């Protein structure tokens, strides 16, 4: 007999939600077979069994959460039997079907003859509650929760064995008419939708998993991370010329301005790691590797694939890798590994003509750079001369707990310096 533990599926993962069990107790399990779907902060992952056996018991039901390393199921070896279970809940006792009057009239049980009596009149439905892989809830309660967009995990069941029944859903709807009770981590005001009545003028579009995760993570970030913003205009004339030279040399491969910015950030972070950090309650984690995430907009959410060791990669490597990751991101085929481990993020809305914007930090990172569009500015030179220059605006969002204004400003200055002297990006 062995315990199956909640695996660590990404390095920022602290707990996982059991999305679906592929097996039920009593099912044979072979190593390599899909056992359970686990939703992490980043993605939905299929988790495979590591050894052969029989699924003995599911300890964490669908929809419920367990921390990394917590047992989520018991796997039995060949011929092993399930561990003894706790006696059924007291409510199960009066649930005995059939002749409920019998106990009051013991004469009713002609003991020697009644071999079939006991098992037949037991309550198999109640007894099997222990091994059910669903959170205990009645089908009616589940349907009402679905229709009202209620999360069953936020509701306490009042039925036998804690089963969530209609009355519990109705109570929940009554008590919380305005904000739909969301997952405890995300008491997001953004999710306040009228829970009960359907407005004919409003179409209800269920949230995709990515949208849910995006919403939860961004809410978490804005609520727990004190952001401050530093804005700086950078002259990119030299950068554009440099890019042109590079692209002529690399032809047919191409690098983008964004690839150069990613590389510049990596170089700047390597030289001055003030923002290559994560803030925790009792310490500052200084990351030794520089992994730069690149925000990719999807139709229904945002993902951030990570260029690992961006400081040690060439610009063309970064370019190729970014395009490959972004392509798979749009097909939602990124693995959690590819979306985790970032130490800094670059978000670029320049292609949409945005001059400048502020970005929300992607925890546990401490900084994110928002890149605006390149534009022609009239610039007054030192000698008072007007010239037209290619410029763009960078806005750095910083976790104030990890880094202060002056330190952040110094970093942004160094980054601007690199971008204005692009040879130093690759030097």
């Amino acid at each position, binding site marked *: 007999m062995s315990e199956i533990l909640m695996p660590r599926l990404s390095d920022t993962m602290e707990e996982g939600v059991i999305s679906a069990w592929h097996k039920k107790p009593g099912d044979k399990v072979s190593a390599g077979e899909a056992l359970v779907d686990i939703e992490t902060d980043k993605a939905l992952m299929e988790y495979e069994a590591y050894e052969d056996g029989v699924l003995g018991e599911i300890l964490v039901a669908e929809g419920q959460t367990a921390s990394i390393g917590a047992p989520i199921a018991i796997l039995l070896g060949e011929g092993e039997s399930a561990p003894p279970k706790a006696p059924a809940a007291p*409510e199960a006792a*009066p*649930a005995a*079907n*059939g*002749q*409920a*009057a*019998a106990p009051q*009239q013991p*004469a*009713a*049980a*002609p003991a020697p*003859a*009644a071999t*079939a*009596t006991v098992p*037949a*009149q037991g309550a198999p*439905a*109640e007894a099997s509650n222990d091994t059910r892989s669903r959170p205990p809830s*009645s*089908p*009616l*309660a*589940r*349907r009402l929760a679905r229709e009202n967009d209620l999360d069953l995990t936020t509701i306490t069941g*009042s*039925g*036998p064995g804690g*089963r969530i*029944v*209609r*009355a*519990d859903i109705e109570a929940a709807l009554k008590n919380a008419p305005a904000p739909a009770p969301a997952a405890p981590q995300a008491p997001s005001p953004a999710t306040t939708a009228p829970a009960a009545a359907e407005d004919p003028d409003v179409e209800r579009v269920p949230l995709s998993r990515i949208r849910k995760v995006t919403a939860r993570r961004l809410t978490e970030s804005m609520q727990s991370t004190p952001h401050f913003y530093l804005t700086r205009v950078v002259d990119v004339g030299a950068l554009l010329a440099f890019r042109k030279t590079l692209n002529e040399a690399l032809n047919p491969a191409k690098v983008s301005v964004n690839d150069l910015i990613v590389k510049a950030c990596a170089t700047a972070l390597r030289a001055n790691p003030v923002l290559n950090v994560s803030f925790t309650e009792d310490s500052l984690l200084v990351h030794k590797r520089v992994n730069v995430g690149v925000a990719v907009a999807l139709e229904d959410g945002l993902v951030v694939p990570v260029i690992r060791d961006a400081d040690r990669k060439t610009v063309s490597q970064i370019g190729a890798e970014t395009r490959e990751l972004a392509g798979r991101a749009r097909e939602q085929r990124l693995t959690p590994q590819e979306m985790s481990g970032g130490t800094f993020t670059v978000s670029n809305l320049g292609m949409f003509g945005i001059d400048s914007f502020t970005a929300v930090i992607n925890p546990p990172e401490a900084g994110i750079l928002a890149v605006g569009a390149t534009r022609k500015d009239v610039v007054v030179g030192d000698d008072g001369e007007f010239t037209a220059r290619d410029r763009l605006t960078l806005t750095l969002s910083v976790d104030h707990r990890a880094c202060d204004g002056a330190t952040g400003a110094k970093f942004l200055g160094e980054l601007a310096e690199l971008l204005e002297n692009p040879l130093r990006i690759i030097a």
Partner: protein
Amino acid sequence: MATMTYRQALRDTLRDEMLRDENVFVMGEEIGVFEGSYKITEGLLKEFGPKRVRDTPIAEEGFVGAAIGAAMLGLRPVVEIMTINFSLLALDQIVNHAAKIYGMFGGQCSVPMVIRTPGGGGQQLGATHSQNVELFYSFIPGLKVLAPSTPAEASSMLRAAIRDDDPVLFLENLALYNTRGEVPDDLEPAEIGRAAVTRPGTDVTIIAYSRMAHVAAEAADKLATDGISAEIVDLRSLRPLDRETVVESVRRTGCAVVAEDDWLTYGIGAEIAATIQEGAFDHLDAPVRRVAMAEVPLPYSKPLELAALPSAESLVTAVRDTVRATGR
């Protein structure tokens, strides 16, 4: 409109149908000279003569087979089998012949016969004379199984059974023969295969038939004093089974208890429970419960017999538990 017993309603209906259609005749043990063990055929021999009211030997397989033959040739026999327990002797004729002939021979002839037979325990008749084995027949395609619970239904459903072209097992119940109820004059034949909501309610559906429909009504009265509003669905027809009415009711109430006068395991309640989960799964707020007989041959001793039979008390307990499980 007249108030009469279930017994009287059956007797009057038989007479009416014999007057209406000279092809209708009755056959069975002790039904002529003795006028029936339960007096359903009282006066019929005198009125219609021995050609249409035929006493038979104690040979169920033989006279059921004879009735099948008569039905195939155009008569409308109404066979009385003294109790449903004795129908087991005619099981092959009923299951392998009556139920099969129409389909097996390409519809060349139907078998428009009725087998009237009472079931039911509680009469201290011992284990072999107290069974409710209508399940056996409800299981068989080709048969119809009707189980009226009131005098009016007994009348309208017997009328329908006699006029129906398929073999019908018409289930009566020893405990119901003396129950009284109003029977409208000029009662039309019932529509076969329709259940009825005999008592509307909002909190729970009790599904029952035959004697248990009365037990359900008694239980519902008791439950009403507790503030529990029980809806009763009387199945009336076990085959064809009116799944729609059952499902519609449970969709309204959100939970159900099936009361049956037979054994729980593989019983009619199991079929009803399956029907409910198929049709009303998303409306169920508690598991479907079944109240049935103790899984023993029914004891002869009166206290033991009463303890083994499903009662209004056991039904009330089951309904209370079910409603409590929904948090109400």
